[in-house]
């Protein structure tokens, strides 16, 4: 079983930066929606709650937006 799991994991490699980038896009959209709705910049807890994730996880995902996580990705994506 361990070997199958490893195979699946290696074969089905989801690069962190890619899925976090997706989440980062959701965060940006939610921030813009909330800003319109509230008439002010939303607080991190408001964004996190609206997305059903923790504030610290919002911070982590946001960072993925900034730079490619590795040279590999810049070259091959």
């Amino acid at each position, binding site marked *: 079983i361990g070997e199958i799991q490893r195979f699946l994991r290696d074969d089905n*490699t*989801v*690069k*962190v930066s890619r*899925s976090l980038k997706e989440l980062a896009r959701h965060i940006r959209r939610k921030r813009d929606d909330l800003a319109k709705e509230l008439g002010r910049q939303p607080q991190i807890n408001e964004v996190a709650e609206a997305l059903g994730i923790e504030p*610290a*996880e919002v911070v*982590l995902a946001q960072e993925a937006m900034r730079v490619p996580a*590795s*040279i590999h990705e810049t070259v091959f994506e």
Partner: protein
Amino acid sequence: MSMTFSALSENEAFARVAVAAFVAQLNPTLEELTEIKTVVSEAVTNCIIHGYGEIEGDIYLQCKILGDSIELVVEDHGIGIDDLDLVRQPLYTSRPELERSGMGFTIMESFVDEFAVESVVGKGTKLRFKKRIRTPQSATHHEV
């Protein structure tokens, strides 16, 4: 890197995300990153709830990248553990009233390649983990 922070439940998410951001250098898969975050979460929560309980104290965390592996140490200077074999058994918890699952040690062990506990009653507890990041095309290897 090493960090020290107060044993408050508010700091659990901070520790988990800080370690994740550090380990991101190795370009892990989302699954690997989730496993690492879970390990940090379980270890830090144990320091807060069991190590210190109602007492104030600090948690010491170290993370190193060695080739394609990470080495993680989580330490408290709390009450310590008397019987290590007992507490490492699946479902064992000394705090059933807090609705603890007793699965923390089992989960931590299952997500890493190496795991060791040292503890001295009245002095504190130190957990050491080693985990290889098994990405097919491994990212740049930093010695940090």
